[in-house]
């Protein structure tokens, strides 16, 4: 992330917005894959500064939003088991399962604890030797290596009562599936900086090589994002398609080999179900055979009935950039940040939550 003094930020922003305006001759749709980008774009007021023909749509890059409600139902079922402590990142608490949320279960007496890092779970497990500590392992390539490191740490410390309920996912197969199905119609991608810091750029080369769509790995400051939009618009107008890296201070071409190695040691690729997108081949991570003793579904199998998701919820189309949240009939009515129906409304990184919060509000005058 480039660091500028405030007046330089204003000058740089003015430069990029002017250049985008000058270069952009036709309507373009750019997809920000990552939920953190969605929120950063709203928070910086970037939409207000772009010319009308440059449209930003959100992609499937919020890990909470793509976690299926069946996973929440399973987590809730474990939280009701005697002697189980559920540990989770905070934003999973309010995600609706079919009938309840972890937050409601906690209020009803379940032992559900928020952690800031999975490594905290080791201490919780050591301090509660008679209980099973189950970490809700959710997230993309960004967080999965830490979960893997925690499993290795638990093994090294002979902690036998730490488990994961795994739902880790990989971003590139989801983009591949969306493009292969002709499901998204976008002219360029803003690629997730945090994820690419682990994976490097190469998993995204197919965007340019196979689909001739330009993409830029970008950071999260307003200038990072504006610069990436400028780069994409320039490429689109000249007919180029490259996968670039605007976030070089953080994202190395080869990614983070150490984190990748740990991830690869513990997890192998598997098919996974994404909320709203269905099953995507090789898009998930499952524990390798050496580590299945850490899988709570092995240690304590549990039968959870399969419940359908809310029929009117259109999170799936939102995640594919096919509709804006406002086109969903539930948006702002039965589905609000206080009472979310779909996962896109739950997470602070969710597209619907961002639209609900910042939406089409305009400062007058």
């Amino acid at each position, binding site marked *: 992330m480039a660091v500028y003094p405030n007046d330089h930020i204003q000058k740089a922003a003015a430069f990029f917005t002017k250049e985008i305006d000058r270069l952009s001759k036709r309507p373009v749709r750019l997809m920000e894959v990552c939920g953190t980008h969605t929120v950063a774009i709203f928070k910086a*007021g*970037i939409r207000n500064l772009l010319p009308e023909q440059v449209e930003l749509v959100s992609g499937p890059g919020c890990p909470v939003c793509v976690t299926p409600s069946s996973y929440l139902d399973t987590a809730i079922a474990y939280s009701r088991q005697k002697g189980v402590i559920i540990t989770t990142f905070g934003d999973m608490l309010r995600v609706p399962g079919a009938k309840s949320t972890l937050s409601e279960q906690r209020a009803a007496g379940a032992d559900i604890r928020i952690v800031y890092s999975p490594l905290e779970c080791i201490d919780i497990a050591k301090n509660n030797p008679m209980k099973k500590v189950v970490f809700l392992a959710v997230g993309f390539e960004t967080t999965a290596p830490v979960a893997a490191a925690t499993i290795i740490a638990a093994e090294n410390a002979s902690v036998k009562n730490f488990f994961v309920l795994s739902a880790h996912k990989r971003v590139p197969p989801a983009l591949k599936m969306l493009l292969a199905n002709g499901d998204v119609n976008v002219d360029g991608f803003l690629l997730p900086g945090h994820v690419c810091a682990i994976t490097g750029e190469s998993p995204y080369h197919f965007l340019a090589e196979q689909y001739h769509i330009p993409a830029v790995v970008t950071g999260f400051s307003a200038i990072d994002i504006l610069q990436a939009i400028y780069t994409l618009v320039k490429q689109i107008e000249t007919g180029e398609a490259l996968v670039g890296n605007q976030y070089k201070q953080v994202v190395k071409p080869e990614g983070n080999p150490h984190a990748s190695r740990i991830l690869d040691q513990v997890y192998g690729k598997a098919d996974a179900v994404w909320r709203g997108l269905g099953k995507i081949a090789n898009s998930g991570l499952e524990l390798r055979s050496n580590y299945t003793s850490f899988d709570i579904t092995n240690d304590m199998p549990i039968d959870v009935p399969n419940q359908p998701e809310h029929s009117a919820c259109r999170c799936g189309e939102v995640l594919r950039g096919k509709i804006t949240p406002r086109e969903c009939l539930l948006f702002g009515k039965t589905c609000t940040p206080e009472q979310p129906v779909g996962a896109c409304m739950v997470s602070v990184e969710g597209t619907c939550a961002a639209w609900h919060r910042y939406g089409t509000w305009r400062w007058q005058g």
Partner: protein
Amino acid sequence: MKDERIQMGHGSGGKLSHDLIADIMLPAFKNPILAEMHDGAKLQIQAAKLAFTTDSFIVKPVFFPGGDIGKLSVCGTVNDLAMTGAVPLYLSVAFILEEGFPVQDLKTIVQSIQTAAAEAGVFIVTGDTKVAERGAVDGIYINTAGIGKIMDDVDITPARVHAGQDIILSGHIGDHAVSVMAERHGITLPQAITSDCAPLNGLVKEMLLAVPQISILRDPTRGGVATILNEIASQAKVGILLKETAIPIRPEVAAVCDMLGFDPLYLANEGKILAFVDSAYSEQLVGVMHQHQYGRDARIIGSVTANNRGSVGLRTTIGGVRLLDMLASDQLPRIC
């Protein structure tokens, strides 16, 4: 004695209760009104407009960098009084203790209460102690109530907020919430961030003596600056436009917030003031605040507008304006 712990009997009203009060509370809070040991404090307050407030304090952990629950419970109530333009005079303190709570910790908290009360110039004149069974309370809860005398010629009310006024913030935001959060979850901060917990009545007094025209004062505690300003925009039926580049946030606090997905504008502060004043007086007021230890980093962070009634906007670093609304629920740490 060193490992002495609170027992149910300490709340029984009998010998143990008596000893707890006589050994710990009375020596710390020593003053003639409390020394009477009556059922209630007898106060002599000359005819005046009074402010009266109460607040309860539950904080985990009880001790955190820059303070503890005792200091917080005094500063919270003193600051609530100060924000009405009152000079805080008397406080009550009520403890709810968990059976097994270390007596040494209670002594430390009581001492901390007295230190904060002394700094604020208030007397603890009455109190109460109850003990709840182990597990019914998380260590210690404290309730404080306070009475203060409203300063002459001062009229602090949202009704006096109007377009053309400036909004002044007394210093960096988010320090308290981040320091407590870091302590609670064992997060190592890049540099020590301590809670800003402090009694603000001294600073408020200086501000009101110099600029009695101040329309409203609020301390942005729970809900942070964004929530308080939304309340004022709604109560006063005005618009508020903040300038992102003017809002003081420590880089360390910004870094932690960035990591966890928190917005510092919604984080609790325990030693900060927001003041609204006509722009003709704002530079003078900032100058006065800079002279006080708790106002050294004061600055104008925005202004009141006639349009966009009920809304708070934030002019971002790159020149856009976004809505700064009320928080739907607690901020929760995000996945990535």
